[in-house]
């Protein structure tokens, strides 16, 4: 039975070991603790991938281990590992290499795992809070930097507000459904839902939308992304979003399948608004981290198109979208972290001018990332959008699909602008030589994005199976 929660156990024990090692060894052990953290996360990833198939409910219905959860957990773990790999050298150069950073990243990841496999509103809340609390701290991790402190405070205040909304929704649902378990709520919701349940559902969705950073709960995203240290921004844009979208998928398709009409309205609105804001908000940005913030809002909107369809095909589309989004985001941020001139990090788009003549491989792979983010075939980003839009069209959401494609066309403008700046503008100061880790992460992500169309079979098969399993569980 314990085997089904093995990744969580490995991570929890690993965190305690890391804390002990760090506390006894002091600041000198920061590098060792980071390596240990990467090892523990890798071990959890292996445990996650090799778990027995099928769905098992553990701890009296608080945690469920199923194919969907395993897939999303594996994605979050990959995001965390890549973050630590990118962050190690970056923090060391700035004298910020304390051992607490990897510990906090692991704590956030543990929160994500609890969140992704939650089968009960209480487990959902605790997972969310564990994840968020660690994220607030690492947003303000560079405490000498006023912008980082501002980012941390802003994220904390708004995040606390969103937790309040979520808890209010959960209490309403408990009051009207009489149970906190997802399956129990679904069983209570036969026939038309009462107003209280719909109220509670709306508040729950608002709380989760904060974590996914979708419109209208996106306002923190640009400021926090810009202010936080760049590796932390890379983390924010990757792993927590996957956890938040995973629990949203699970919540609505396991606990609220009976009132899919109600939540689909909410998702459709959030999705269309996010796509539009992501496309138009990013146009005027000069800071690449801010631009990536708007880009991530837009991408969350695209991913939710699949959920709006409300079918297994849609869920499969969202899972595929998040996989490809993770690869693209990590690749892009590896390039952004590598943007350093004489040891000073630069983050303006203008600093990329003429990159193709000073550092052609970096310019080429970053251009591939941008083309993929814009959704240009045959790169992976195109297939991600393809799967969610096909699901939306099969569900009859034609207007939404058309709006999405239009937003995607607008968004292509600012991605292509970066490519134009890199390839056709006069060269400025050249960047420092990036570390091998960053170069290989960028190149690896670039190659994955380029060759996805050759052999998409394995990923598609896994997502297909996991999405069917998730949706089957709910329909008796």
């Amino acid at each position: 039975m314990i085997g089904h929660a093995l990744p969580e156990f490995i991570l929890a024990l690993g965190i305690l070991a890391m804390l002990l090692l760090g506390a006894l060894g002091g600041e000198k052990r920061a590098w060792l603790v980071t390596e240990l953290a990467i090892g523990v996360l890798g071990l959890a990833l292996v445990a996650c991938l090799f778990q027995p198939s099928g769905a098992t409910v553990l701890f009296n219905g608080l945690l469920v281990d199923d194919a969907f959860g395993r897939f999303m957990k594996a994605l979050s773990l990959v995001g965390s590992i890549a973050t630590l790999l990118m962050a190690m050298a970056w923090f060391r150069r700035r004298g910020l290499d304390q051992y607490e950073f990897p510990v906090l990243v692991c704590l956030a990841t543990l929160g994500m795992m609890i969140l992704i496999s939650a089968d009960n509103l209480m487990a959902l809340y605790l997972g969310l809070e564990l994840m968020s609390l660690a994220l607030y701290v690492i947003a303000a991790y560079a405490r000498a930097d006023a912008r980082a402190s501002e980012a941390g405070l802003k994220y904390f205040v708004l995040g606390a507000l969103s937790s309040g909304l979520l808890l209010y929704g959960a209490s309403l649902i408990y009051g009207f459904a009489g149970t906190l378990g997802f399956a129990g709520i679904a069983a209570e919701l036969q026939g038309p839902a009462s107003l209280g349940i719909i109220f509670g559902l709306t508040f729950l969705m608002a709380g989760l939308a904060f974590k996914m950073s979708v419109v209208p709960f996106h306002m923190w995203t640009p400021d926090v992304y810009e202010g936080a240290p760049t590796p932390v921004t890379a983390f924010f844009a990757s792993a927590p979003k996957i956890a938040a979208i995973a629990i949203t998928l699970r919540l609505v398709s396991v606990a609220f399948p009976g009132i899919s009409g109600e939540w689909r309205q909410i998702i459709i609105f959030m999705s269309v608004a996010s796509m539009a804001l992501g496309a138009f908000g990013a146009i005027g940005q000069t800071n690449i981290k801010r631009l990536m913030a708007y880009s991530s809002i837009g991408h969350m909107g695209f991913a939710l198109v699949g959920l709006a369809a409300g079918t297994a095909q849609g869920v499969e589309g969202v899972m595929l979208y998040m996989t490809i989004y993770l690869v693209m985001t990590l690749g892009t941020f590896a390039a952004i972290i590598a943007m350093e001139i004489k040891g000073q990090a630069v983050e303006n788009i203008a600093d990329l001018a003429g990159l193709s003549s000073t550092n052609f491989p970096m310019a080429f792979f970053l251009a591939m990332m941008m083309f993929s983010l814009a959704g240009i075939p045959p790169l992976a980003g195109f297939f991600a959008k393809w799967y969610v839009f096909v699901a939306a069209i099969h569900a009859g959401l034609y207007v939404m699909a058309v709006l999405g494609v239009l937003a995607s066309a607008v968004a292509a403008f600012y991605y292509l602008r970066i490519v134009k700046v890199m390839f056709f503008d006069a060269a400025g100061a050249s960047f420092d030589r990036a570390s091998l880790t960053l170069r290989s992460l960028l190149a690896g992500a670039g190659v994955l994005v380029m060759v996805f169309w050759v052999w998409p079979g394995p990923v598609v098969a896994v997502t297909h199976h996991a999405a069917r399993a998730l949706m089957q569980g709910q329909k008796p």
Partner: protein
Amino acid sequence: MTPAVVFFYIFASVLCLAAFMVITARNPVHSVMFLILAFVASSGLFLLIGAEFLAMLLVVVYVGAVAVLFLFVVMMLDVDFAELKQGFLQYLPIGALIGGLVVIELVLVVGGFIATPSGGGHVQTPTPAAASNVMALGEVLYTRYFYLFQAAGFVLLTAMVGAIVLTLHHKPGVKRQNIAAQNARTRAGAIDIVKVPSGRGLEAAE
């Protein structure tokens, strides 16, 4: 009158009196003392209805920790309570409004409980029939919700690590006590015997 009823009236009247004194006492320290009396009296009431664990918890947590914290705040901080009490009449309508709302809520809650004592049939963890308070609580907290208990522990651990990361500064210029270095000092390294010629002072000897 059974002894339980007698004790109920004793505890209840002490509680009401103490609660009244909390808000009317002139000296804030007396207020806190009356608050402690109110806690003790209400824990007696809990004992009477058979909630012995809650009674002990009230004494341990509220008297032992919260009230002591209040006392610290009242005694350490120079708060001018006379100034705080000014404008009492001015804010009376708002206070009365909030008080009225609380009364209405109490009536609704108690009324609902009287109408359906079982809570409408939906109780996440019903009270077991033949188990003491402590056993029932332990069953829920450490067995049924063991997973959440551990997760909550990790949330607290995160809060602690986070607070230390964000606030603990090791400034280089600050002198700190190094006990090992203190203990390792010997007479040879610490004491310098100086012959001072009479009438010429210490400066001449160096």
